[in-house]
Every structure is written in structure tokens, then in C-alpha cells.
């Protein structure tokens, strides 16, 4: 078990990631999200924990190295650390002994109808908090069935004066914000979509 990260170690990493603390913090969050995704695709158990471990380890190492760190791109350095963390996690996983009287835990249950309904209520609230033009674009994008939907998307791109790829990207960003808003809203019991969407806007992009 490694010691908790000291504030100055964390600051060293933020400083490497961005010229000021705020930008560094945003890049830290983005980097963490990317790490989680890559660990996930690698089939690692607990990708979020591994992402945190990677960033903590990188922060410690960067502080130790100080001016000896010669790379101009800390993200590549983090990638190297992530690779080691992933390898260690596989090794760890394969050598944990079976405890006495071990009984497997019940697998996580999929969300029930009630949870889904709560998510839908939150989605409605989060959609209502979008700017009207954004809301129109996102609902227009998902409107219709198969062929009709594809035609609708071309029309939408034409109306907005953007390419279809630019529209796809816009929708990806909007749905990312909505997803974060819905998660926060459901975590807060479904009553705080406005604050959740504001929070989502701050952490994405």
C-alpha cells in the first residue's frame, strides 16, 4: 500500500500538464478519463483505481525527478507508467490466494426498471437545461428510424452549415455532457439536474 499523495506531488503533475493550475486540473481529468477507457479495453479489473494509481505514481516520480525529467510531454510519461500499472495488475490478479471459506460475491445486478425510469426522468431534466438550440440538435439527431434518421442527420448538418463529421462530434460532446448530468442527477436522487449539467459543462470539453 503506497503512501497518500502529498499536495506538492500532485501540484508537480498539474504544473507539468498545464501552464496554470486550472488548465492542469482539466487536463488531469481528461487524462484520467482516457486512462480509465484504456484500462477498460485492456480488460483490467477496477480501471478507475488503476487510473488513479497511475496518476499518483506519475506524480510521485515527476516530483522525484524534478528538473531531471527531460521529456516535454508528460502524457507520454504517464502512458509508460500506465503500462507498468496494467502489467502489475494482471500479475497481482493471478497470484492472490483463495481465502479460507471463500464465497464469491453475487454479480452486480443490471439496473432495474425503477432505475431506468429515474434515469429517464433525469434525462428529461438535463435536456431541459440545455440551450434550446443544443436541445433541438440533439433530439433532431436521434429522431426517426434507421433510413429516415440518416436522412434527418444530413438535413440537420446542412441546416447547421457543418459537415456530417462535425455534427457527429458535436453530438458526441453533447451526449457526453448529458451523460454526466444524468449520472449526477441520479446520484443526487433525481432533483438536481441544473447543477449537474453545469458541473458536466465544467468538466468536459
Amino acid at each position, binding site marked *: 500500500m503506497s503512501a497518500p499523495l502529498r499536495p506538492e506531488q500532485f501540484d508537480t503533475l498539474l504544473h507539468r500538464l498545464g501552464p496554470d493550475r486550472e488548465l492542469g486540473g482539466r487536463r488531469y481529468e481528461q487524462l484520467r478519463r482516457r486512462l480509465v477507457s484504456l484500462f477498460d479495453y485492456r480488460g483490467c479489473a477496477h480501471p478507475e483505481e488503476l487510473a488513479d494509481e497511475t496518476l499518483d505514481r506519475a506524480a510521485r516520480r515527476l516530483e522525484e525527478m524534478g528538473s531531471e525529467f527531460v521529456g516535454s510531454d508528460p502524457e507520454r510519461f504517464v502512458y509508460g507508467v500506465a503500462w507498468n500499472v496494467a502489467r502489475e495488475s494482471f500479475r497481482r490478479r493471478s497470484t492472490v490466494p483463495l481465502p479460507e471459506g471463500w464465497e464469491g*460475491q453475487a454479480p452486480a445486478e443490471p439496473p432495474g426498471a425503477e432505475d431506468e425510469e429515474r434515469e429517464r426522468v433525469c434525462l428529461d431534466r438535463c435536456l431541459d437545461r440545455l440551450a434550446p438550440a443544443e436541445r433541438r440538435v440533439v433530439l433532431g439527431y436521434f429522431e426517426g428510424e434507421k433510413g429516415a434518421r440518416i436522412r434527418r442527420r444530413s438535413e440537420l448538418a446542412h441546416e447547421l452549415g457543418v459537415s456530417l463529421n462535425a455534427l457527429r462530434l458535436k453530438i458526441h460532446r453533447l451526449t457526453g455532457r448529458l451523460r454526466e448530468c444524468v449520472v449526477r442527477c441520479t446520484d443526487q436522487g433525481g432533483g438536481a439536474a441544473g447543477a449537474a449539467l453545469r458541473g458536466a459543462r465544467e468538466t468536459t470539453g
Partner: protein
Amino acid sequence: MRLRPDFERTLRRYVLGDLDEGLRVELEELLLTDPDAFEALGVVEDELVEEYLDGTSPAPERRKLEERLLISPERRRRVRLVRALRDRANADQQPRAEAPPARAEGVRPVGWRLAWIETVAEWLRPARWQPAWVAVAAVLAVSLVGNAWLLSRYEMQGLARTPGQQTVAAPPGPQGDSDALNRLQARLEREQQDRAAAEARAKALESQLGRPRTSVATFALAAGLLRSGGSLARVTVPPDAVLVRLRLELPEDGHPLYRAALHDPDGAEIWAASRLRAVREPGQAAVVLTVPTELLPRGDYQVKLSGLRDGAEPEVLATYPFRVGAS
């Protein structure tokens, strides 16, 4: 933005687990260090989720999606969001009283209801695997090594780097990233051509010879915690095995269907198959669980077997602990 058709194809292959390890490592580095590339991955994932919901993905792709994309809670949430957005958009389009059924026709139930586990298990049945040959694998390996050597001659410095290295060959920034992407793409295309040629050679050899490239190792496990000697049942997976078949001896054979779940040492369920039927042989009935070997590195595991009956809760019948050792 990285939404170029060739790069999108690469990203699709990454999501579906079809990239070779070398390319995968390089792509992962790009995804981690280039926010645009990572955003392109998100767009491709969105598209795959939509194809999945539309039911338009080809069956093999659909299975891979269920196995890789939908296994993550975060990505399953994405599926639910897209489905809810579609429902909402279509409800806005038509008055609610006349609204069509909430789910579009042709939309199959999404994977998180554990149906994917059954689908994957079905896909893993040996009969579905193409026969191939150990000799073919060797020929392929030699061919790929040769191709890799040839490719390496064209490599630019940055792409030859191993993942753990800290040195930065090119300065960061759009131009550096773009060069890296182009090199990766060029390499991917060459690799695709080489692989197609190697696969054609393999196919020709397969038709002449006849041994399977994908071997399946089978082990019988008895119910109970430990063997009489006090040690765990040992499973030694041969290096060339792609699948491990665990034959779970039934303490009692009173259920029409069974569910078998493999748990790792932390207790997490890492593989499961449902609606399994007992194989009845004189004196002993058993249920067979097939597991990819990549899920079984050295360590201790446990299979939990439950009996299924219509309208009743699954009934836990037995556990089968075992240890995977070195081959």
C-alpha cells in the same frame, strides 16, 4: 479532428478487439496522448452503440460488441442514454397518445440483461471455431516476423519506441500528432495487406493439412471445496489452448437448465454462461462451461453452479474451486 474513414476503421477494429498487439499498443499511446484521437474513439463508440441498438451489426461484430464494448458499466450507460434519447426524440415527434412502441422495431434487447453472456458462450462452442493448424500458426508467425522486419525498415524513429520509454522523439503538438497518426495508418494498411496474404497462405495450408489451430483443453472438476488430500484441483492450460472446457460434475441432476459463473480470487464474476443443459453419461451427469484461456492466468478460481427452473430463483448447487498452474 481524427474522423477520417481509414482511422475510423482502425478505431472500430480496436473497439472490437481485432487489432494486432503491436498496433494496439501504438494506437493506445496515441489515444492517451492525443485528445483528438481519443475523441474520435468516442464518436466511433457512439456509432457502434447505435448500430447495436438498430440491430444492423453483423452477428460476429455484434458478439464482439457485447463482449468488449458493453461489458463496461460506463458504456452500458451510454447504450441506455442513446436508447432513451431516441425514445424521447420520437415521442416529441408524435403526440404521446399515438406514439409507437417505446422501442423501434428490429431493436433487440440490449446486452446488459446478461443475454450477452449466453450469446458469447454460444459463440465459443468449438463447433463455431474454424479449423486451423499448429503448423499454420508457425508459418504465420514466421511470415509475420518477416513482415515486421520489412516494415521496421520503413519505420520512422518515433514508432519503434516501446511503451515504457519516456523519451519523446517528436515535439508535441498538432503536427507531431498528425505525423504519428499518418505513420500509424500507413503501417496499419501495410499490416492489413500482409495479414491478408498470410491468411490466404494459411487457408491454403489448412486445406492440405487438417489439425485445429485452436485447441481446447478439457478438465473435470468435482464439486466441493478441496480434494481429499487438501489441495485444490489443478488445471494446467497448454500453451496453444485458446479455450478451456470445465466439466462440472453435478452433485444432483434435477434442473432443466443451469448457470455457471467463474469468479476470480477477488470474488468478482469474470465469466458466466446461462441456460446450460446437463450432459448425461452413465453414472455421472455434468455441465460444461467453456472459458477463454486469456481469462485464466495463474491463480485460484471458483466456479459457482446454480440450477434454473421456470419462475424460481436460481438455486446455488455447488462450487468448484481450482488452481491454474504453469504449463
